């Protein structure tokens, strides 16, 4: 399972051509014609090579098919469904909002999180729980998928940062997740949590720390092959000296009366004002001597750099198409990024506009979090409290939200996750029996009649999104009487959740 077909050499070719191809989206449309060959879709279960299913788009841009989503897709069609999901604020999400009312810290400022003085409110715990509630129940599914994508991209390990800042970190990402990348980047950096986690709050003139400067270039923007050097890491480090957090030097924090505690603050007296050159020595590479404007300028250069366009486009193609998207596909997506001033919605619209026609649209393995959420969604589980979902299931699968310690985010790869199947099967078999804590399913509401074929149709409609293979059908027929017993039905749904098809999307 190789993970990188679009290798450094290809990327360099893009960069060399980059200047010429900015704005040349029309050109890209031609070059990708070979990638979008057309007509390859047969009806079949989602996640199989045979056919990516009628509801392939639904499964790719949501946390898994539900009948409601499938019906919506049937009613309005591919293009309208995609457009709707790309405009999340126009989707009524009041039901999810009412579920979120139990979490009191979501709209609190860092100061209020800090000074809430109510020990029953734990912002970091509420962040983990509310992410799960949204993933299962929000109708703004693509938005939530993108929030997870950017939380990985701008990863912050919750135990190596300030939990009081986490609600605003997530809210910032949610607010800007589909807009301009420059706006997203700037707001995420200035929300402080990333700088806290990567030690930039202590990166001050004369006492520098390269952690943030390096990861900003390597992970958040240019990518590791983006053409920068150790000197550029040092430049970025110098430029961001003095970028910090209001109240950071106050002690003790929990006694503070500074209402701006936790907000971005530029400390001019801790900033290295000297002029720098970034990624070259020509006049256009100059970052003039100055204060905060140096960092703003660098963020702007980074956000619009062709290497950044490539890095973001590559990750998005990998996320939504397949582990090994072609060079041409990434190039076209990167061009969409550059010609739209880094508009994420435009790039997504390009990648997703008809994935069924792309030969690079291939089955992917659900990461543990995705598997867990999709099974709860497919089974219409009513989750009253996510605590056991987190500790009994996600923790054993090693993907609790906000708990990835290194700065690169949970990996989007099959090989690292696939060996840990047992906890998935455990969840699959427990849930239809209603043996999970605090998550109830009405398995009898998932099919029309309890004949053998009626139950199988229920599995196809709710879990697979298309007809299962003849072999699998025979396997299910083997475990169901002509009139299925209650236990047989529950165990058949368990087998379906545990099956190879349901691990893929």
């Amino acid at each position, binding site marked *: 399972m190789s993970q990188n077909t679009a290798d450094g050499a290809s990327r360099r070719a893009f960069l060399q051509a980059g200047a010429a191809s900015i704005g040349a989206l029309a050109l890209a449309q031609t070059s990708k014609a070979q990638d979008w060959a057309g007509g390859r879709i047969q009806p079949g279960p989602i996640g199989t090579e045979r056919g990516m299913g009628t509801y392939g788009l639904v499964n790719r841009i949501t946390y898994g098919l539900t009948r409601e989503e499938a019906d919506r897709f049937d009613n309005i069609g591919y293009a309208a469904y995609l457009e709707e999901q790309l405009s999340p604020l126009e989707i009524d999400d009041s039901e999810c909002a009412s579920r979120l009312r139990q979490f009191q810290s979501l709209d609190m400022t860092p100061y209020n999180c800090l000074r809430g003085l109510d020990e029953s409110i734990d912002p970091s715990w509420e962040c983990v729980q509310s992410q799960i509630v949204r993933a299962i129940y929000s109708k703004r599914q693509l938005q939530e998928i993108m929030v997870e994508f950017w939380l990985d991209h701008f990863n912050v390990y919750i135990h190596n940062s300030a939990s009081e800042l986490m609600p605003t970190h997530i809210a910032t990402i949610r607010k800007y997740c589909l807009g301009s990348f420059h706006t997203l980047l700037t707001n995420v950096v200035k929300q402080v949590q990333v700088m806290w986690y990567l030690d930039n709050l202590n990166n001050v003139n004369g006492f520098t720390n390269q952690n943030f400067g390096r990861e900003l270039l390597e992970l958040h923007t240019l990518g590791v092959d983006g053409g920068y050097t150790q000197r550029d890491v040092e430049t970025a480090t110098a430029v961001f000296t003095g970028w910090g957090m209001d109240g950071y030097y106050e002690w003790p924090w929990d006694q503070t009366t500074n209402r701006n505690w936790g907000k971005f603050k530029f400390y001019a007296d801790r900033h290295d004002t000297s002029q720098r050159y970034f990624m070259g020595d020509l006049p256009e590479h100059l970052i003039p001597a100055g204060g905060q404007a140096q960092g703003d300028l660098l963020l702007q250069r980074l956000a619009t750099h062709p290497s950044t366009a490539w890095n973001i486009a590559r990750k998005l193609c990998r996320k939504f198409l397949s582990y090994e998207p072609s060079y041409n596909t990434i190039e076209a997506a990167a061009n969409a990024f550059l010609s739209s001033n880094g508009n994420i919605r435009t790039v997504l619209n390009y990648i997703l506009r008809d994935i069924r026609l792309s030969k690079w649209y291939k089955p992917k393995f659900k990461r543990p979090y995705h598997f867990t959420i999709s099974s709860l969604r497919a089974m219409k589980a009513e989750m009253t409290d996510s605590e056991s979902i987190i500790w009994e299931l996600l923790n054993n699968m090693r993907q609790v939200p906000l708990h990835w310690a290194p700065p690169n985010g949970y990996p989007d790869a099959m090989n690292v996750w696939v060996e840990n199947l047992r906890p998935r099967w455990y969840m699959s*078999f427990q849930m239809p029996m209603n043996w999970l804590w605090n998550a109830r399913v009405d398995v009898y509401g998932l099919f029309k009649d309890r004949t053998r074929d009626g139950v199988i149709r229920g599995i196809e409609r709710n879990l697979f999104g298309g007809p299962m293979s003849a072999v699998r059908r025979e396997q299910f027929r083997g475990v169901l009487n002509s009139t299925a017993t209650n236990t047989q039905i529950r165990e058949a749904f368990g087998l379906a959740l545990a099956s190879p098809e349901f691990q893929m999307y």
Partner: protein
Amino acid sequence: MQRKVGCQEYENLSRRGLIEKMGRQALQGLAPAWMPSVTFGSDYRGKFGPADRDVLISVYLRGGCDGLTVCVPYGDPAYYQHRSSLAVPPPDQTTNANRAVDLNGFFGLPPAMQPLKELYDLGHFLVVHATGLTNNTRSHFDAQQFMEAGKADKNLWTGWLGRHLASIGEMKEGALLRAVGLSGTLALTLEGGPRTTTLANMEDTRYGGRSESEAARVNWLRQAYAAAQPGLAEAADNTFKTIDLLRSLNFSNYQPAGGAQYNQPMPNGGGTYGSASDFGNSLRAAASLIRADVGVEAVHVDFGGWDTHEYQAPFEYYGPMYMGMYSLATNLRALYTDLEASGFMGNVTVAIVSEFGRTVQQNGNYGTDHGHGNVMMLLGKNVNGGQVLGTWPGLASELLHEHNALAITTDYRDIIAEVVQKRLKNTNLSAVFPDSGYTPTFRNAVRAA
């Protein structure tokens, strides 16, 4: 898997599953090595065959551990010039514990590493210094990938240990599992290895659902996954085998031998936590797999938390550096005791690496940034220990790599390759390190089996 499976077949499968289950219980009569009722004869270790090869425990210190603290070059005066407040003072005759204990007149171990001093003196613990990945990257993720793959090649997605396993026959005939990674995700080091899996928790072997129907459901899954796509089919097969194996081992009742104590409390009485305590659990699990003698020939352990950009304080009990080193040293010591008392240590080699060392100069936050050359360590009775191996390039400013990092004088692959050939008995080093630009130079780090 085109076979028709009807209702009757399901019942048959259930029965067959029951027979298998009974067979497993019978197998449990061959009680695992740590069960108190079992005493082993002196020939127990001979199950590997007297002239056979070692089990390898591969430890990866994620984050880039600071080799200049793990093994202190107190004899190099430049060390103290670069590290005004992070340096470990040289050994002397005073009773002040916050200083190095001497190894060889030039290098010393900091207090947290001193549990390994005895093994060093026995000649079973080896430090290689100024070693590492010769590629210049200072990215964690590139450096880890290149090191684990064994080549600076972004398109090589198998690991050196996985390729070792793939290029040599199994150590024990019919072994269900040949290699295990002790975490929830598979490390690249092991990628490409046959019968290799990852375990988040050796004690949890539940499939879920009703116990009466478990065997039948598992057989259903076996059929379904046998025809699944590549990757998924093998992973499922490994999972079935692993669960069978673990259920026969009764890991939750594991008793370390020789009074070995994993996860000891720290000198101030506090416990280690996070990745530091996970490491103790992982070594305990590794020892149990080795002592169960089920043919597992490689165990990979990830140990995170070494990216000490801030507050590296080598003497502070709750600092990340102290706790990491303390866990490393005490748990390796416990592993040695456990395996020595049970007669296995003579057939085990432990290799410890990290992606890069850290900057020689401390940064502005009592920490260090990403550097280059580093230590690696070997533990085993056939290791040529009791020495700090390698050519010391010096820490004077003009001698540093890119002005701020320890230079590398020994390619880490030289040491690994020697272990692979001499202790793991695999002479196919070009399969393990498929790099046409690299030929291993043995450094006499281990003795041949």
